[in-house]
């Protein structure tokens, strides 16, 4: 992906090149192969509720946990473009198969990479890549979603560091996490933009508890978790970055994570489109196949058009992001459109499958449930519209 805006004669001659870089294209095709091989395990997962261990092993062994991390820590140093292209492929698998990658390609890892001290990074990153240190991102609270300022968790300075109290909810991977990025007010009087700090919490610290699991609309296990902190003593070196700056870290992390959620919805939508096309060609009706019917053909045309637009918007936003053009509205637009168009594509796919689309065991039925969350987390569609309009009307 290295197209240029046609600013001068030379640029006009060079035209635009929309090809993704070769290495990323290779990542994409090898990920597709791996996904095709892992998909048959979905059945076992749906029957037992347990993700077969070989899924995680395969992802770790083949470098997926390392994707976003710098080479100096044994990572691959890949940017948003590579991460999103890979994520769009992985999104064909049940989310539980790749949910552990979310913190690694999302806000938790971004926070650690951008703001952790060299010592903290050396302690954590190799283990995150090898899978030995699962992590989780603790931001959302029962009374605090998009409005970060209403956060109630506090960290009060004492002689040994900070004393953490409060609770968080909807925390993915909390049960397995060995280290959590936790947000808390360190100075309520300073308000969100000056009073929220981020900490690295070891899961073994006394006073930290996983209180419960919240089953989800999508395939219900393993769900997300409620966690709480009761006089959890954080050592001085647990502070992530600077005190009072974490509001910006959260937005920055979510901003990058947004592209990843957009990629997830893109992958689900494209998968639904493929399934619908295959189904339409083999499903007999009225002496032919439903693919012969204009109603179906138009649905497929709309799905294909929207998914193509979503892919281009997302790749464009990723590429610009990697070039340093980190405009919030581009990530928001890409996330907004990909998640909404992806949802429409999945909905159409269910319609094309007819009764089978409503039956457990058919991938479109699962996609219908799983894609719904992409319009909510990492900033709901409404928050994205706020961000976009704020930037446009600035």
């Amino acid at each position, binding site marked *: 992906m290295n197209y240029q805006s046609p600013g001068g004669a030379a640029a006009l001659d060079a035209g635009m090149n929309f090809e993704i870089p*070769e*290495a990323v294209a*290779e*990542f994409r*095709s*090898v990920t597709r*192969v*791996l996904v*095709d091989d892992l998909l048959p395990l979905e059945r076992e997962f749906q029957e037992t509720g347990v993700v077969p261990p070989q899924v995680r092993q*395969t992802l770790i*062994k*083949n*470098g*997926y946990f*390392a*994707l976003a991390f710098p080479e100096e820590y044994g990572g*691959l140093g890949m940017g948003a473009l590579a991460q999103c292209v*890979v994520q769009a492929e992985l999104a064909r698998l049940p989310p539980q198969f790749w949910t552990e990658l979310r913190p690694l390609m999302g806000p938790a890892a971004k926070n650690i990479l951008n703001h952790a001290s060299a010592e903290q990074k050396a302690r954590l990153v190799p283990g995150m890549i090898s899978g030995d240190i699962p992590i989780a991102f603790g931001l959302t609270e029962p009374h605090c979603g998009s409005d970060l300022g209403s956060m109630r968790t506090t960290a009060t300075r004492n002689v040994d560091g900070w004393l953490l109290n409060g609770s968080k909810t909807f925390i993915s991977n909390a049960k397995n996490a060995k280290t959590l990025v936790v947000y808390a007010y360190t100075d309520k009087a300073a308000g969100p933009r000056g009073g929220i700090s981020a900490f690295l919490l070891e899961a073994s610290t006394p006073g930290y508890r996983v209180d419960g699991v919240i089953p989800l609309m999508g395939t219900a296990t393993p769900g997300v978790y409620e966690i709480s902190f009761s006089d959890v003593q954080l050592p001085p070196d647990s502070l992530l970055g600077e005190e009072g700056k974490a509001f910006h870290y959260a937005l920055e992390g979510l901003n990058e994570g947004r592209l990843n959620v957009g990629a997830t919805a893109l992958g689900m939508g494209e998968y639904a489109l493929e399934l619908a096309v295959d189904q339409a060609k083999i499903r007999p009706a009225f002496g032919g196949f439903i693919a012969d019917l204009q109603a179906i053909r138009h649905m497929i045309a709309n799905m294909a058009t929207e998914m193509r637009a979503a892919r281009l918007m997302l790749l464009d936003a990723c590429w610009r992001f990697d070039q340093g053009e980190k405009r919030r509205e581009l990530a928001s637009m890409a996330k907004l459109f990909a998640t909404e168009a992806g949802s429409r594509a999945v909905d159409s796919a269910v319609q094309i499958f007819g009764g089978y689309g409503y039956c457990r065991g058919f991938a479109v039925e699962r996609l219908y449930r799983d894609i719904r969350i992409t319009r909510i987390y990492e900033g709901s569609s409404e928050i994205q519209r706020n961000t976009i309009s704020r930037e446009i009307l600035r």
Partner: protein
Amino acid sequence: MKLLVPVKRVVDYNVKVRVKPDGTGVETANVKMSMNPFDEIAVEEAVRLKEKGIATEIVAVSIGPSQAQEQIRTALAMGADRGILVETADTVEPIAVAKLLKAIVEKEGPQVVILGKQAIDDDMNATGQMLAALLGWGQGTFASKVEIADGAANVTREVDGGLETVRLKLPAIVTTDLRLNEPRYASLPNIMKARKKPIETIKPADLGVDTTPRLKVIKVEEPPKRQAGVKVASAAELVSKLRNEAKVI
């Protein structure tokens, strides 16, 4: 010991090929292309021999258009050390492929050439055997097990009804069957490493080989479509139809 592994760029096995309306071949434009699956097994076997310390270097060769570099890159990402692309846009038949490979073998001096037993596009199943003949080497075709020791290869072959083992003096040719191994994925870190491995590009003429086809394709057509048959209502009706109507039991 050096190993040579030829890899072919073919239409991906998941793609349902379509015959071109003018009957000159099948549609390959905008179709997903991949490494021939049997060649992946060949690369995997070579990499395993290297991991066991039996082989020291693996050279992946492809003969085809410049895009065949992608398949060489895949081989490099799986563990081959370097690549050679014999670049040509023309159709190259197994006899010409075998001659090109012979020229490369003479230059590179591998002890074993491991090839896929057949390419899933032309389904010829010929190149390995032909290369063996041109070199005067022994051939272990359709291998399900390969053991190399003491200057010889013991190759267990898939034959009709079972297995046969032959002992080949090295250097030798091995062609792979499905059960030989389960190819690994090209891992993301290895894809990055592979980008730094060298690929040399040459032309068929550099090897002094005439690749003019011996077979002229008169036409390519769809196989006759099967008519969907009838639904029967019961096991009894089915068996009766098979006995009395189809007369196959």
